[in-house]
């Protein structure tokens, strides 16, 4: 039986119960812990306990005390206590089933916190046929920065392969098509930028104090992430029938014309940078007719490919 668990719970209670910040000496008296003969090792144990409780989210405040060299500690109830979300029995059940279908065991405690004072869940039919998996580990690195508005710096590899130090004010975490993104204000570029978290190299480090900046009132996260990388251009292609569906899926429209035995389609809004690779991937099934500049780029790329693979 380890007394450590009890010590940590009781330390939390002592810090919650005190109205004014209390010193380490006072805490010793109230909790009857940290009474080792060696004061240094008692102090170290207290420091370790504080660190562990803070990592669980216990908001331990440190205060300078007047007329004293000592510091005082306390936990403010409003910062500690989770307000009630007022969930209905049906909502509690839906949240439980959603986590079950996600296999997200690491979120069970968070849900238990939210439902701790809620009514017992309705009985809903379990979801057995649809399952989802979301690898959420990258969230941990940046969640605190977004929550506390703390600037970050990290090495970032651009799509072109260069690696640079970025200093940013994080605003949002988002996921799309298997990738995690950080939406942040880039300090050097003085503009909003979207960063793919899997292109961050090495550690993400705090680069300033919490609360250093404000989140914008309006932020179109979905638009920023799905947005284009290059300019939008209208592209005309001649396509084999088997490529047709994929083109239509990306917004291609039929025209009445043909090019030899192939039909001609018009794609009103292609991303010049991102979609060049997509067009190349069709091989002989798709020929770009216009614009001429894009056509030339594709020819040059194909010639390079032939040369390399001789």
């Amino acid at each position, binding site marked *: 039986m380890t007394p450590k*668990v009890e010590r*940590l*719970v*009781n330390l*939390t*209670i002592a810090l919650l119960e005190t109205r004014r910040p209390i010193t380490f000496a006072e805490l010793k008296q109230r*909790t009857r812990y940290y009474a080792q003969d060696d004061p240094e090792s008692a102090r170290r144990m207290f420091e370790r306990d504080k660190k*562990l409780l803070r990592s669980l*989210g*216990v908001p331990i405040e440190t205060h300078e005390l007047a007329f004293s060299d000592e510091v005082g500690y306390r936990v403010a109830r409003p910062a500690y206590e*989770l307000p009630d*979300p*007022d969930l209905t029995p049906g909502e*509690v*059940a*839906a*949240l439980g*089933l*959603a*986590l079950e*279908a996600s296999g*997200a065991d690491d*979120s*069970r*405690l968070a849900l*238990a*916190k939210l*439902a*701790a*004072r809620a009514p017992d869940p309705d009985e809903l039919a379990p*979801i057995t*046929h*649809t*399952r989802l*998996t*979301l690898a959420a580990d990258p969230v*941990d690195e940046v969640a*605190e920065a977004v*929550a506390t508005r703390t600037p970050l710096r990290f090495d970032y590899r651009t799509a*072109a*392969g260069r690696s640079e130090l970025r200093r940013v004010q994080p605003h*949002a*975490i*988002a*996921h*799309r*098509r298997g990738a995690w993104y950080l939406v942040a204000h880039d300090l050097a570029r003085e503009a909003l930028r979207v960063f793919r978290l899997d292109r961050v190299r090495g550690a993400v480090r705090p680069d300033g104090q919490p609360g250093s900046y404000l989140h914008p009132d*309006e932020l179109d*996260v979905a638009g920023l992430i799905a947005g284009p990388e290059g300019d939008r251009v209208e592209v005309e292609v*001649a396509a084999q029938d088997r490529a047709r569906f994929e083109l239509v899926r990306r917004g291609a429209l039929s025209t009445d014309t043909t090019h030899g035995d192939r039909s001609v389609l018009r794609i009103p809004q292609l991303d010049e940078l991102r979609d*060049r690779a*997509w067009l190349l*991937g069709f*091989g*002989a099934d798709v020929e770009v007719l216009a614009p001429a500049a894009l056509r030339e780029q594709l*020819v040059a*790329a194909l010639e390079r*490919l*032939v040369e390399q*693979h001789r």
Partner: protein
Amino acid sequence: MSARDSVARMLTLVPWLLERPGASLSEAAAAFGTEPATIRRELLHLDFCGLPGLAGGDLFEVELVGDRVVLGMADELTRPLRPTPQEAYRLVLTLDAAVVALGDDLPQLRAAVDKVRGVLGIPEQQADVVPDDEDTALLAAARAAVRDQRRVRLRYRGRSDEEPTTREIDPWTLDLVDGQGYLQGFDHGVGERRVFRLDRVLGFEPTEIPVLTPAPAQLPPPRYVPGPDDLEVELRLQRGARWLLDAIDADRIEEHADGTTWCVLRTDAPEFIARLVLSGGGDLEVVRPASLRARVRELAEAALANYGGEDGAP
């Protein structure tokens, strides 16, 4: 079970038990996603918690009769501790993904997630799972097919298929793995289990025919497992093609001083890799095997023929 995990749970277990006098150990275990034995052990700890001597303070009173628990004298901890930012963002984003994936199957989920976001202070503009609009209708149709257990007719083009084919499928499960949808089921054409990526589905036609072939008891989510017959491929990437490393699972990656990257991967679909190299437009080169180098050249030459051939003749 680490002391850290126990403390984290106990700070929430106390208000949970205070709210439900006489709850059973197994109910508590279910709510926290753990074992009744773990809850029982933590109750023994709680017997030593509370601070006697403080104004009104006393040790907690834990009464365990059979497997029913009554907790008293624990007024210091009537409300749960707020989730950490990591817990909160993980939860909100996981739930947001579930809203996209489960949609109408859980009509109350969206309102619940809004309440969770509200109390945690995480609006959509700080944490968002962005759905693919192109796939929303298909996803709903696939979900309905697996829920109602009705056969579907797919137009499908697999990674190595030259042309799309039509398949009759008894759908078993729909899996969303990091946003990518997969339909697993029994393919009547081949008489075997098959996995279909939703982004390769060109047409989806539900039928009224009930599923005939039952799903196996265990059906793990689809995941690419390299097989013994897979081809080992070595690629050389210029800086401009580094994005590829975001899209594939490489076995080995080596970065060279000249800025190029070499990677080795295994694949059961060489044609797919050849098309990937093609889309690299020269920033991606097959080092080996020779057969794949030849295939890339062949595809590039065929495409070039559209544009009047290498010599520029129309």
